[in-house]
């Protein structure tokens, strides 16, 4: 069980970080099995933390 717990952290589809035309920070979510970028989201106030905390609050996991 503990070994399975460890494996859940072996995430392969990581986010890339880019900037948009205004120079604001974006995260880029890539398709798991291709290099095609599917979603780009601009980070609020250039903050990955604010983005994450909002997602967690929206899902009532924080």
């Amino acid at each position, binding site marked *: 069980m503990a070994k399975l717990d*460890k494996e859940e952290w072996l995430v392969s589809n990581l986010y890339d*970080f880019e900037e948009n035309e205004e120079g604001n920070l974006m995260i880029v979510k890539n398709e798991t099995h291709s290099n095609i970028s599917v979603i780009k989201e601009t980070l609020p*106030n250039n903050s990955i933390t604010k983005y*994450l905390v909002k997602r*967690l609050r929206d899902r009532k996991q*924080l």
Partner: protein
Amino acid sequence: MLLTIRCIPMVTLKPIINLFEQQKGSIPKDKDKTKYIIDKSFIEAWIEKNDDDSKHAKVFSDLIAFIKRKKLPLDVFIPIDCLLALKKDNKKYVENEDFKRIISSLFTIIEVDPEDSDLKQEESIKILTKAYVTQGYNIVIITLNEKLYEDIKKVSNVYIKKPDEMLFIIACFCSMFPELTQVYETWFNSC
């Protein structure tokens, strides 16, 4: 030392950086031979809390995103045992897929001992620290629970720092990225 970047024009960052560099026991200057390790308390501060130390954990994590965008080298490790410890504490956010992807994207998750699934998070950090120090690296452990690491603090080239003591690094990068100064100000916005 309580120093903030807020309301300080970019041109005055250099004296702040110089001041930190002169401090005894400050963060090592050889950036290429320095690696950082965060622990469970750092994650709790980053995600859950809102005091000054926690705000510095937040801005340090935001800094890592800027560094990733610019492809600059700055290795920040977190042993997998720290994440398992959070799970044992029943932190709901540890199950969140965005959390998993973001933490994996910002930091390097490392399995210290594949044979041991019950390793205490602080023990895994000490093992990792000793391994890198043996290879000639400086190690900075960023934690809000310094007492856990008092024994390893005596080892040369090991630095135990609270998040607010990372202001030196943040100030260095603020001088490179004006946007990062704005991010800092959104966390410490009482000018």
